[in-house]
């Protein structure tokens, strides 16, 4: 023992306590095993307690204050010993997994997109698409555990656009871009066979029923609103809500929050009867892909050649994507339809202004997700519910930093101003979504074929097999047999304007 260090220790009251403890403890340790020393031990502890109470009460009070004031800051109470022979160990620093995985993922993504395009558009094989779906589910889902995914990448891109310090790794950029580019040319092939979230629901969709049009349209608005919310929260650097509320990632990892497991399980259960509920009514990336898919030149077609309007495929789609032919409007009704469309267009600014107003008035609520804002409220109210452990911890952590309350209030006010802009932006967006939906419902483009609606079609390939022309292409039916089929069986009740 080097007396020098001990004397140093004894210089402060804090260290006197430590020294007292050390002396007592060493005394105890020598005889700890002999039974007759139980009493001595007890006496030792009484003395120890006493020494706490008397000689060290001041430092303890100070220290207890310090525990809260600077719990983790390096306070060198006991100078580290200078060992002569002992080599200090290194703190182990295990390396992160190799970036090779990210490279492999992007290669997998590109290859899977190419294959999915080939299977859906050229080979027109439901089986091949389904096998690829399974492979993607295994690789991107269960093996790579659902990260990185393009749905979540929206948030990275949004944050990178608004936050000058936020950079996005290249793998995430590739994951965000490739499915969009493919959708722009070939439709939602990403949803068909690459997305693991789509894959898990694709397998679940065994008894999918058609939804009524009004429900389909109403629920179909939610992805756009969700997209706006996710972008706003990511752009303000508050949270990545898409990742936080990813329903299936808990399955991919075989671990996760109970609430998310229940949510995911419930979605899968619903998915048995309502095909792909996440993709159709929640997924914000699917919404963008659908819009891009509308522009695709080479999109999935049901008949390989020409539609004979036999209606055989009408109920083939579990996702309600097949739209029946629409005859052109009779001349007498055109004026009314035009008036309706003009009215819907005139209503668009009203929707947008309404949304902006609502967004502005709701921005304090939106800001409640921001920790800085909540923290300012807790500090300001000065009375925190002691059962709210998070609030208590957050206040403690804030006190630890030594930052002034005024600076916290300033930053919280700044955050609120940011959220006011974000709220107006989100409101404008939601208003725009409602207004455009109204306009869309007021239009009635005429069609002559049974077509998959590119926005809703996920290119799963279920419908191919139903088409007699496809049967001919495969050699399962002859041209003569198809010629005998009733044609132009247009059902007036199945007009898609519902």
């Amino acid at each position, binding site marked *: 023992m080097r007396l020098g260090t001990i004397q140093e220790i004894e210089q402060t009251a804090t260290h006197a306590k430590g020294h007292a403890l050390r002396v007592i403890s060493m005394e105890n340790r020598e005889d700890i095993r002999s039974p007759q020393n139980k009493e001595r031990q007890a006496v030792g502890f009484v003395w120890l307690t006493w020494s706490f109470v008397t000689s060290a009460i001041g430092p303890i009070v100070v220290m207890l204050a310090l525990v809260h004031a600077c*719990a983790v*800051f*390096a306070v*060198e109470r006991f100078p*580290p010993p200078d060992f002569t022979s002992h080599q200090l160990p290194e703190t182990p620093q295990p390396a992160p997994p190799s970036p090779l995985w990210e490279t492999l993922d992007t290669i997998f993504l590109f290859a899977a997109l190419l294959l999915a395009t080939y299977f859906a558009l050229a080979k027109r094989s439901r089986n091949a698409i389904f096998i690829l779906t399974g492979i993607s589910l295994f690789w991107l889902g269960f093996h790579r555990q659902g990260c990185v995914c393009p749905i979540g990448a929206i948030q990275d891109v949004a944050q990178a656009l608004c936050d000058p310090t*936020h950079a996005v790794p290249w793998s995430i950029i590739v994951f965000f871009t490739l499915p969009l580019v493919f959708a722009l040319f070939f439709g939602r092939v990403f949803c068909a066979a690459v997305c693991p979230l789509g894959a898990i629901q694709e397998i679940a969709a065994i008894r999918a029923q058609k939804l009524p049009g009004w429900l389909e349209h109403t629920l179909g608005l939610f992805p756009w609103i969700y997209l706006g919310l996710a972008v706003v929260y990511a752009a303000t650097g508050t949270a990545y809500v898409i990742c936080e509320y990813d329903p299936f990632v808990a399955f991919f990892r075989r671990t996760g929050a109970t609430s998310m497991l229940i949510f995911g399980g419930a979605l899968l259960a619903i998915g048995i009867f309502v095909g792909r509920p996440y993709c159709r009514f929640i997924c914000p990336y699917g919404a963008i892909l659908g819009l891009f898919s509308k522009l695709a030149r080479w999109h999935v077609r049901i008949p390989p050649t020409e539609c004979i309007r036999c209606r055989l495929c009408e109920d083939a789609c579990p996702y309600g994507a097949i739209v029946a032919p629409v005859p052109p409007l009779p001349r007498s009704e055109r004026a009314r339809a035009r008036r309706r469309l003009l009215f819907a267009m005139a209503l668009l600014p009203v929707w947008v202004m309404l949304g902006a107003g609502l967004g502005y008035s709701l921005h304090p609520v939106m800001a409640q997700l921001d920790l800085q804002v909540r923290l300012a409220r807790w500090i300001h109210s000065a009375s925190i519910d002691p059962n709210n452990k998070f609030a208590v911890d957050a206040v403690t952590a804030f006190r630890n930093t030594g930052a002034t309350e005024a600076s916290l209030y300033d930053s919280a006010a700044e955050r609120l101003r940011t959220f006011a802009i974000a709220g107006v932006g989100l409101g404008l967006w939601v208003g725009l979504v409602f207004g455009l939906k109204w306009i869309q419902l007021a239009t009635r483009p005429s069609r002559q074929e049974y077509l998959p609606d590119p926005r809703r079609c996920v290119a799963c390939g279920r419908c191919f097999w139903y088409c007699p022309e496809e049967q001919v292409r495969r050699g399962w039916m002859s041209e003569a047999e198809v010629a005998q089929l009733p044609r132009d069986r247009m059902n007036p009740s199945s007009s898609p304007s519902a």
Partner: protein
Amino acid sequence: MNCDHSSQRIPRRELLREGVQLAAFFGVGGLVGFVAGKKGTAEQLVWQIDPYKCIACGNCATHCVLDPSAVKCVNSFPMCGYCDLCTGYFPPEPVALTTGAESQLCPTGAIIRKLVEEPYYEYTIDEELCISCGKCVIGCAAFGNASLYLQVRHDRCLNCHECSIAIACPSQAFVRVPASQPYLLKHKTKPSAPA
């Protein structure tokens, strides 16, 4: 809208479609180009705990998607006082200064206590056992040199896009760091940057 000559409608619609498609293509290109052109894009990012913000609240143990958590306690050996009565190892009133389970603060016995030379003991963490409850971190910070602290262990961390612990962290201690420097280690002198 509803044009009488259906033969004219198709090309016009086709032209419009191609125009919008081109616009969308360049729109995505511009967006991605802007994002990709930013500094630091080449680096993969990983999660880490800023030890100077962490208050060892215990959420790391309960909120990680992994069980046990990917966060573990580490000891900064140059900071450690090598105390005999380590307040990170023993509870405030220890039964005895031995390695018996009843006298340890750690609920899983993950801290290994080894005599170096009287009266100095070296404390290392058995990461297999550590559950990142942070009890020892608080104990060490309260009465010792605060050499014990929590770190995300990258051999375990799944590097979720949004870290579940980061959402639950009350002290905003979870940050993204470049994968080439994945640890925020504690050193003898605190970095000058204020919290």
